[in-house]
């Protein structure tokens, strides 16, 4: 997916976007076509369609629902509202990158979501987890009110919120 097609075109004219996603480095050529980054490509499109990381879900595609939340340099961002060409040099974590890469063990927050059945259909869950994780990274002992506030941009129509707040609170304050 991340291989760069070599061609005989003038090398000087090529531009590359460097991204680090889940500790893996990608160099993507700017341009139109498979594997490249078009100037109109959103980060969520690049993650899902170019890099195949479909764990990041897109629902409204307009910055309203929080489904596509990922971390950029540790901060929660909406990947549907960022253009990939503006993300050169940035480091991202997606839902696929939360597991411990060496042991394969789930992040305690992911495990807590399973233990509390903090989802129904599960479509909003990756975004919920990434929003909550960003909060806990910054504030490991977040209060219930802080958790609710941090998740207030995450749309869920099943109303998993109550179980989500419980799952996050079970991890909050426990540290890592």
């Amino acid at each position, binding site marked *: 997916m991340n291989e760069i097609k070599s061609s005989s075109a003038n090398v000087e004219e090529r531009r590359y976007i460097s991204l680090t996603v889940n500790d893996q480095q990608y160099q993507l050529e700017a341009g139109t076509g498979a594997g490249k980054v078009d100037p109109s490509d959103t980060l969520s499109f690049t993650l899902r369609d170019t890099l195949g990381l479909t764990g990041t879900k897109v629902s409204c595609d307009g910055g309203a629902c929080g489904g596509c939340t990922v971390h950029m340099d540790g901060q929660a961002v909406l990947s549907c509202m960022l253009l990939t060409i503006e993300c050169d040099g940035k480091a991202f974590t997606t839902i696929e990158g939360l597991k411990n890469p060496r042991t394969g063990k789930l992040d305690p927050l992911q495990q807590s979501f399973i233990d509390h059945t903090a989802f129904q259909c599960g479509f909003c869950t990756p975004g919920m987890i990434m929003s909550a994780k960003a909060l806990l990274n910054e504030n490991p002992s977040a209060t219930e009110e802080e958790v609710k506030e941090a998740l207030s941009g995450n749309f869920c129509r*099943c109303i998993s919120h109550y179980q989500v707040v419980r799952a996050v609170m079970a991890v909050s304050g426990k540290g890592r």
Partner: protein
Amino acid sequence: MTMAVTYRYIGKVIPRRDGPDIVTGQSAFLNDLKFRDLLYGKVLRSPHPHALIKSIDTWKAEQVKGVKAIITYETVPDWKSGNPPIHLLDKKVRYVGDAVALVAAETEAIADQATRLIEVEYEVLPAVFDDYEAMKPGAPQLYDDLPGNLLPLGLSPTWANEIVMGDVEKGFAEADAIVDGSFGYDNIPNPIPMESPAAVALWKEPDMVTVWVSNHKIWGAKRILSAIFGDKVQVRIIGGACGGSYGSKSVSWQVQCYAAALSKATGQPVKVSFSKEEHLASFVLRPATRLDAKIGMKKDGTVTAIAGSWLMGTGYYSITTQIQVSVGCGEAMIAVQCKNWNLKPTIICTNRNASGIVRGFGGQELKCALIPLLSLAMEKLSLDPFDVLKKNFVKPGDGYFWRDAIWYNYRGIDYSRAMDEGASVFGWKQKWKGWLKPTSVKGTKRIGIGVGVHGNADVGEDMSEAYVRIDNDGRVVIGSGLAEHGTGQVSNVLKVVAEVLQLPLEAISITPGDTLVTPIEWGPAGSRGTYAILSAVISAADDAKKKLFELAAPMLDASSPEDLETADSMIWLRSDPKKRVHWKQVLNLRNVMGNGRFEPDYTLANCMISFVELQVDTETGKVDLLRVVNATDAGQVIDPHGLEGQFNGCLGSAGIDSAIFEETILDPTTGYMLNANLIDYKWRTSAELPVIENVVLETPIDSHCFHALGVGEITTSPGPSAVLMAASNAIGQWLYEYPVTPERILQALGKSTEKKKGGVL
């Protein structure tokens, strides 16, 4: 209540089977699937609410590199569905957003560009958006063969199309109070599952089509598409994780047919995935309801007569509105045991997006108007609404006409105890101060309470089949046509088979949702999962166990297979447990297959009562939901976390919040939906969660061996009318319209002159 029976899995918190995939992003929703040579389909939509297509020129669009097919009403296959059936593409467009042309291209961007290059000349026709206006002589006519824009009732004359029984005149004569009124629940809220409707189709000429769907009823989709394509075409439906439905995706024939038509035209797989704006503006809404009726009530709360007309606005066509009317009538009878009825429904078409299936399915719509009307009578007689709703709810020995117009004698439990327990947890008796009286007033803040109730006999609707195959390695495979849509149904099927066969859950798998390999399954709807779906699975597991015992009996010198027991893959003689044999030894090079089937049964009904407490700010008009207490009796809890999730779902998916702020706003001059996006369509965030308390009793119900009954579908239904009641009590004035927006509150208080009706500005 403590149960005599202890189970290994039933009623225990067991992690969902799909949990690890969900929390790691590995769940494959439709847009996560990869296909070779996939094309992307887009729909060109009408900017006019009502128009004839005079010409379509696709030449410019066809010249775009990467465009593979363009389909218009002139080239589309003659595919129709709905009640009565409409064409997939038509020469006439009937709402802003109606499909005009379909494009398949190599990328979404190319498909988008091509749709913009299609030149359409319209002859714009007058349009009608108001349900009453649509019935008037001279109103614009949507269909040549539906004069007055009236739709035929019932799927056939054998369906329940009204409630006519007893003698209403006699009933009114017996009444101590008679009220006449009109309440509407016509703000057409949208359930908006997070995953938008989508489908991928691959048509292999001449007559094989495979459709990957984003909905949860794969056999329902097969049935509908088979009827559309005709007998010659073999339809295979594959379902995966479904990102929410709340009923709405149950019927998704249009998006599926767009993909199928484009695949038929190109020979390649085609995906059509609605944007969120398309989802809101061109996929289904709740039907609009208005009830004009007269109610007779006695001093003791007995409802003596109900007579009136029930108008259901279905938008530009009906998917299942007739069935929603039939079920809604039955659900009204379950909640209100009245001997004399004359309720006449009407279904009307207007130039707006279509109404479809949403949790509550006709019953919530009718109840949102019927309970407020009953309340007017209760107010006259100074009766406590809790007492009246409890008294009138169906009890053993009572009955109702169900959707098939057949009378069913109710053989379920008395829900009075669950209602009492809910009232006690809520503190109803302490808080109730009488009609149109707030429970407390502090400055501009007034607190009000309300109660609503709902029940549904679709818990036993339609058919389910399942198989349970015990493989010779001792593992078990369940064949079931389910696609998980959030209720945990798939995990509960695994749980139930593990309980019947006394196996570790890890030894049990379930087929993917694929009609090629699964038996027929109506799918989750109407809370039928717990009774109907599980009954078929239990029967299949029992059947497999019986066949296994028949093979084992001679090996253990048992005189009858019934003398055997099994757990953890060992079978033993009950009278001599030392005589035992492992499943693997019994099966050797053999599998056994058990089959199960559930036949419809409408003699049981579930029940939900919801109590709400809210605060109205008389200065701003804002309504804040403070507390909700839901109560039911589930017979036996199967999955505590899943049940809690269903209960909490009472707020979203066009539930309680459809009474507070959820609504679809149509521009009455252009027919445009003004809030067809997730910023302008209001939804509840985690920062504004009310307290929810859920009360669940477990009185064994005569369903299947686990005595359980589902309630998931109906949790949205009792709340909206409870909110209207609570807000009316808080401000001391009757409110007649949903939702109770600040404008409506201020208007009722005489602080605003702005007029606003239903879903129309």
